[in-house]
């Protein structure tokens, strides 16, 4: 079973629906016991970093998550869940979980697109990901696939952890992490078949780890 972390941040059911569609057993939960039992954890979220961090802290889920990650539990952060595992966010200067060194930055409104026009903020729609190194999540995902993004802040982790980048006014990090602990700025649950494939690859990795 995959646990979808419930920390009262945005709509968690879209991840659940995508997993259901792929016949991947899952449960939306904030119970430490259930999180511990799960083969892997998906850390979703839309909304603001500050209120998300407050929810994690008041429920002490921040400590629970860190302990689970230290124990080697596979985890996948999505969108806000990807930004919040860095050290801090420029969104109201919020200190975040500090699982990876890095900062979430706001798109500079002075950035321009290819035609020389000012970029729209949020970055909303389908964009490409250029993988800088092999990532099991992207196994059998077509190279020219695109993914659905919707965000005004982007992760800027220590370069050692950058796995993929996307261009929008600048090249920003859209995939980072390490084996077993990944963060995606886009929404795999809203990215059609390539996105569902990524969720499947995560589940498969979790299954393999549990048998290892």
């Amino acid at each position, binding site marked *: 079973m995959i646990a979808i972390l419930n920390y009262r941040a*945005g*709509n968690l*059911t*879209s991840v659940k*629906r*995508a997993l*259901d*569609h792929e016949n991947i057993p899952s449960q939306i939960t904030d119970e430490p016991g259930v999180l511990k039992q799960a083969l892997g954890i998906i850390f979703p979220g*839309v*909304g603001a970093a500050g209120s998300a961090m407050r929810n994690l802290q008041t429920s002490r889920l921040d400590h629970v998550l860190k302990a689970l990650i230290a124990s080697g539990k596979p985890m996948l952060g999505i969108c806000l869940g990807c930004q919040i595992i860095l050290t801090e966010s420029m969104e109201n200067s919020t200190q975040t979980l500090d699982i990876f060194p890095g900062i979430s930055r706001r798109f500079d*409104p002075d950035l321009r*697109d*290819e035609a020389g*026009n*000012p970029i*729209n*903020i*949020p*970055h*909303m*729609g*389908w*964009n*490409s990901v250029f993988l800088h190194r092999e990532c099991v999540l992207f196994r059998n995902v*077509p190279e*020219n*696939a*695109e993914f*659905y993004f*919707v*965000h005004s802040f982007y992760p800027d982790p220590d370069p050692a952890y950058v796995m993929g980048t996307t*261009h*929008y006014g600048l090249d920003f990090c859209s995939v980072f992490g390490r084996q077993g602990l990944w963060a995606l700025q886009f929404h795999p*649950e*809203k*990215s*059609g*078949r*390539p*996105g*569902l494939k990524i969720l499947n690859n995560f589940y498969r990795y979790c299954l393999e780890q549990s048998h290892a």
Partner: protein
Amino acid sequence: MLSKRVIPCLDVRDGKLTKGVKFLGNVEIGDPVETAKLYYEEGADEIVFYDITASSEDRGILLRVVEKVAETIFIPFSVGGGIASLEDMRSVLLAGAEKVSVNSAAVKNPHIIAQGAEAFGSQCMVVGMDVLRVDKSQAVPSGYEIVIHGGRKRMGLDALKWAQEVESLGAGEICLNSIDADGTREGYELDLTGLIARNVRIPVIASGGAGSPEHMVQAVTAGRASAALIASIVHYGEYTIAGIKEYMHHAGVKVRRTW
């Protein structure tokens, strides 16, 4: 590089599509879920449902359709039509829509935009604008006026001023429908689209007038739109979404071509 989006719009009344979709063949004509699935598989980047149900007691039917769509397609979709309160927004979003679109209700009560953005985030607040070309006047200096009730009621509100106001209130996107172009199939109202797109920083979806793939290229180049809304040109099988995207790609527009 961000792709330009191609968005089919489905009109729903009492849980059924109001216009049949001719080329569906083996699916029940008028089933919004099956039609959404077909467009999803054909490469739609997003889908818009516009509910024209007259009575509020039938909202339940719409919500069941939204739930079913959310279980079936894994791209964003929005629901508009008759959204007048935070409660309306909440129920549609909880049923699985990615975004809600407000139109007349926002003109009558602009605070609903700020309240929705505060409660659910700007990313799910789309403001639909129906716009009529008029003589320039002191009240409407751009020559484009906001109308409501399907274009029947002029509001004396300048479209450009309104677009900037909805942006500052926290709208995440504008769906800009030209009443003059709607149904003509002679192309989007490019002057209007460009005027609004140049003067706000949120994405603008061009709507009304699509008759050929070339019109969609124009909407996202000269019109500076982020996306183009289409209806009859795909509903009646004249063009496919995949074919439209291929055309746009060859015209030099970046579109998503793998799904």
